[in-house]
């Protein structure tokens, strides 16, 4: 089978290779990394008939411009509402199309969302670190960030004509702007007035937003002399409050330990959508219990599994598509 080759004509900052991430190494200072929006990432792969942990390109709001130098390959674009332009024709994301030698592919942010996922039918050739291509942005370890002039190689590239067209979006996502949190683990370091302020207030994302985390803007939280706590483990979703009282939500490339108290932790089911918000988008945290959090995680996992299974079916010819979509809607309703 043939390869497809692309040249990067332009890549914004934080456009990186990502697979599902390297879990299990936080004890060595290594966060899992991987996609900021794991569901959109898995959807791009599933819809294209790829393994759901295959390497993709995560595209920031800086955008990406590629020229196909040789071969042809089908691609999928998911994630935030980004636009895809192929040889001058623009269409919204959540779509599969085929790119061949001589064509230019441009991906730019549209009306909403911070991260898009570009999957290729075939095997993206990347550097790996500890068995994964997921890029740890601060070190550059893993597949790394894309830069202008660099070539992208897809081995055993395939054309998936039977999969071209729009990708069904997930319909089970929670309301945006209301990430659910479990209080703690250090909420006892905050006065009850500060805890109430945190729960009742509206915050906004600031421009200080990268793969490590995002600083929020909003009411400052008073720490009751908690800046002297010993450094301790933190995870994706931890909301840590620095000495200036400003909360920061930790994301995919977070530090693995830190000495700032964590007032609350965003549940994993809500982190994908949280990461897709943009600077100045506003939000209010919704408090839930640990048991509710576990039950949400279980419901979400079942919904994700059903959804990925559904979109992984090839669409087939037009008559086949019509018949199957009738059947699917018949089952759902």
């Amino acid at each position, binding site marked *: 089978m043939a390869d497809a080759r692309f040249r990067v004509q332009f890549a914004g900052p934080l456009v990186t290779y990502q697979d599902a991430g390297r*879990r*299990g*190494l*936080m*004890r*060595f*200072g*290594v966060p899992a990394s991987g996609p900021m929006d794991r569901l959109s990432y898995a959807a791009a792969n599933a819809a294209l008939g790829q393994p759901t942990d295959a390497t993709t390109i995560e595209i920031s709001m800086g955008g990406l411009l590629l020229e196909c130098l040789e071969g042809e390959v089908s691609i999928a674009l998911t994630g935030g509402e980004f636009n895809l332009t192929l040889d001058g024709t623009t269409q919204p994301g959540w779509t599969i199309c085929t790119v061949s030698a001589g064509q230019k592919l441009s991906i730019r942010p549209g009306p909403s969302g911070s991260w898009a996922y570009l999957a290729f039918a075939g095997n993206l050739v*990347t*550097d*790996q*670190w*500890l*068995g994964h*291509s997921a890029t*740890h942005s*601060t*070190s550059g*370890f*893993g597949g790394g960030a894309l830069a202008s002039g660099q070539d992208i190689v897809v081995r055993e590239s395939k054309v998936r004509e039977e999969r071209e067209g729009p990708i069904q979006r997930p319909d089970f996502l929670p309301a945006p702007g209301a990430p659910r*949190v*479990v*209080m*703690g*683990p250090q*909420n*006892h370091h905050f006065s*009850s007035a500060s*805890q109430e302020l945190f729960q009742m207030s509206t915050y906004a994302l600031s421009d200080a937003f990268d793969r490590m985390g995002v600083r929020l803007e909003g009411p400052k939280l008073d720490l009751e002399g908690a800046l002297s*706590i*010993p*450094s*301790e*483990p933190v*995870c994706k*979703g*931890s909301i840590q409050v620095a000495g200036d009282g400003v909360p920061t939500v930790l994301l995919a490339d977070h*530090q*693995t*330990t*830190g000495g700032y108290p964590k007032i609350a*932790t*965003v*549940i*994993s*089911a809500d982190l994908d959508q949280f990461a897709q918000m943009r600077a100045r988008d506003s939000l209010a945290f919704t408090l839930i219990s*640990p*048991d509710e*959090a*576990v039950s*949400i*995680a*279980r419901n979400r*996992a079942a919904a994700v599994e059903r959804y990925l299974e559904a979109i992984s079916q090839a669409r087939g010819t037009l008559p086949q598509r019509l018949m199957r979509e009738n059947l699917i809607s018949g089952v759902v309703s």
Partner: protein
Amino acid sequence: MKASHIFPRFVPVADHALLVEFADSISDDIANRVLALDHAISASPPDGLCEVVPALVNLLIDFDPLVTDHSIMQSEIEALIPRASAIDSNIQTHEVELCYDADLAPDLGAVAHAAGMSEEAVIACHLSASYRVGMYGFAPGYAYLTGVSEQIQLPRKQVAVRDVPAGSVIIAGPQCLVTTLTMPTGWSIIGRSPTEILRNDPDRPFLFDVGDTVRFKRIDRNRFDALNTGNQGAISHG
């Protein structure tokens, strides 16, 4: 919500983790209890365990919420604690080589001045101590070594210095660290090591485990130059 002051304290974290805390402040005894529990969990991992992150006074137990939950995990950990009385005998001692030449140790003079000692006395003090890997953090392979002698303990600088080379040996307060990446730091830079902490070895990608002992060995410039690959990172083509 008032925190319970009875230790060990179990605190749920989101939908997928439990923080097990042995104390609010650092001591050797507490570090030993953290390590003993870490080893006990590793010897008989509860169902649904994803990973354990040991730190100075507590451990994060990350689990799969599809398999278990906070209360089941808490009771399994509680059952392990009485058995977690001793730390494994396979604690290793590692020798880390370092060169104190002036251009590799830009803050050695300032440390000597602040401590009221000669630079050679600071070096002797740094070399005489035995260090313990307390935890990792900040960046891949950043192992926080405790045990810096009180005579040379200094606070962090007011302003961090940018682009400090990988391999720098830095100190702040009771902690010492051998950096693995070129990063900013506010700690004092007292030497540079050619010893690779991030290793290109899939079976042992990091030189230290939490709890291991580290001793430093002084080397001259010739040996440093011979050993220093200038590449602490362990990136391989896959």
